[in-house]
Each structure stands twice: as C-alpha cells, then as structure tokens.
C-alpha cells in the first residue's frame, strides 16, 4: 500500500471535524422562508381601530414593514419601543395583530404608543398561516409592488436593524426610481 493512503483516515477525520465544528455555529432555527420573493397573500381583515376592512391593495404603492404581534407575546413588548422609534423616523409599519384580544391590543397601543399605519385583526390566524408565521414577532419587508422581499423572525432591535435597514433603504430607492419612470 502506498504511504499516503495511511493518512486517508486522518484526512477524513479532519474533514468531519471541520464540518461538525462549523455546524456548532449554525442556527438550526434559521429556516429560509417559503414566501420570500412571492406576492403578499390576499386578505380582507378589519383594523383594530375602526373595524374597516383592509386588503392587500392597502399595502401596495409604498414599501412597508409588516409586523406580526400580539399582547401575549413577550418579545413583542421588547420590540415595541424600537418600532415606535422606527415609525418616528418615517418607516411605514403595518401590524398584524395575531390571535389576540381586541381590547387588550387597543390598550397596549394606547399605553405603549402606536407605531402602525394600521393594524389588522387576525383573530383566527388565517392571514398569519398564509404568511407561514410560526410565532410572534415576525416581520416581513414588503416592496411597493406587494412582493415579500425579506422575512425576519424574532424581535427587531437597534442591534439587528442594521442589515434590515440596508434592505429597507434599497427597496425605498427602488420604488422611488420606479415612480420616476412611471411619472415620465
């Protein structure tokens, strides 16, 4: 047998070791969303504020963050102040109130501030199921044509907004460019 062949098992060991070591730092919960680059699903749901129905047409025309939240969700409370701040900076946020009690939700918005352009009441979680939501909070970045461009699981914080902001501003620039072309 050739001499190099003796090092083969060691080579395989190093390779496996490397793969397993890499896997230690991968997040198994980081599952790619099935909905990225697909159209935002159709819906017709009442808002929390005035019970008038909103549809997918209401989020088209401008870039939106679509944020799934509920008063029963602790991480949503963590996230909330930052959303309020984002709204002040001019980020348009639409809320999906996920399987929640209306009064509790209204009280929450009263107490903590309302960052949402509007919040729809998804009491049965039908829209959230169409969105592939597995828990709250979850946030989708939806472009002006109503296509989902990014999905973020877990709370948005000052710490992780950076890369999201990059996507956000590139989409805003994209929609402005489109408007210009459309206007001419």
């Amino acid at each position, binding site marked *: *047998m050739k001499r190099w062949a003796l090092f083969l098992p060691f080579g395989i060991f190093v390779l496996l070791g490397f793969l397993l070591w890499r896997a230690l730092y991968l997040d*198994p*919960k980081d*599952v*790619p*969303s*099935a*909905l990225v680059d697909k159209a935002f699903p159709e819906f017709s749901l009442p808002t929390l504020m005035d019970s008038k129905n909103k549809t997918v047409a209401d989020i088209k025309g401008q870039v939106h963050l679509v944020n799934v939240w509920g008063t029963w969700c602790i991480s949503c409370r963590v996230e909330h102040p930052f959303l309020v701040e984002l709204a002040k900076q001019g980020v348009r946020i639409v809320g999906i109130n996920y*399987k929640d009690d209306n009064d509790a939700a209204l009280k929450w918005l009263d107490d903590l501030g309302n960052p949402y352009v509007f919040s729809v009441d998804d009491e049965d*979680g039908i829209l959230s*199921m*169409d*969105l*592939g*939501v*597995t*828990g709250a909070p979850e946030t989708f970045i939806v472009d002006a044509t109503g296509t989902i461009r990014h999905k973020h699981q877990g709370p948005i914080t000052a710490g992780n907004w950076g890369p999201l902001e990059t996507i956000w501003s590139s989409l805003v620039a994209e929609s402005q460019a489109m408007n210009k072309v459309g206007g001419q």
Partner: protein
Amino acid sequence: MLRALCITWFMLVSLESMAIVNGHEYPFKDGTEIENTTRAQLFRELAEELRCPKCQNQNLSDSNAMIASDLRRELYKQVKAGKDGQSIVEFMVNRYGEFVLYKPKMNRMTLVLWFGPVGLALLAIMIFVVVVRSRRKRIQDNVKDDALDPQEAQRIQQLLNNTSEEKK
C-alpha cells in the same frame, strides 16, 4: 355476551373513523364509512409526517406548540373536507417551506440526502473489495516466492548429497 360483542364491534368501527392525535379526538363523520376511515388514516399519517415549523424535532402530532395545534386544526379541516394528501402537503410547503416535510421531496437540493447513504455504502464496498483483492494478490505472490525454482532445487540436492557422501 352477544351484547358485549356488539358493543365492542361498534366501538372498533367508530374508532376507525376517528383519529386520536396529541390527546385530542378528531372524528371523521362527513363521508361514507370507507371515506371516513381513509380520512382518519390520512390525518394520522400527515400528523406524523409533517414537522412542526417552530420545533426542531417534533411532528405535528407530538408538539404542543401553538403553531402545531393551529396546523393540526387546519389539517383536520382540510382532510375532513376531502382534500387529498398531496394538495395538503403542497399547502403546507407553500407556507412553511420544505422544512415541514419529514420525508423530503426529491430534487437537486435533497439529492445528497436521498442518495448520500447509498453512495457511501457503495464507496465502502469498493474500498473493501480493493483491499481484499490486493491482500490476496500479495499473499499469492509470497507463496510463489517461497517455492523453489529448479536451479535452487538442484543446488540443494547437490549440497545434501555432498554432506551425506562426506559422512561415509
């Protein structure tokens, strides 16, 4: 006695058209008897085969997560309405991605998953065959080397003859 038998029989029949998953009862009553039984069977199968999107290693029937119970309800609704397994699986994959399938579809992404083990087994067999062959060849070569060629045999014979003659 007859009555007891009858009751057991009825219970068995009704149990067949009912799926008990995660401690909940899911009765199927809307179709014919055969339809109900196959629907209950389909429901049981899919609750085993679909993975809870929130939990890493539990299927819909194992998990107590909110999303799992929502999906069980959706699954029940769709099976009860008579939808076939394939379209229900498609419904789930469209929303939650291939992650929800414990039995992944065969495509370019999952090729390694499906054929990796077979490939590795073939590789192992190949290595085994090569090693065994080369060992066998080496042993045969050694045996040949050990055998005396005619010249050697003659020389040995001569030496032996010489010693025996000297003794005389």
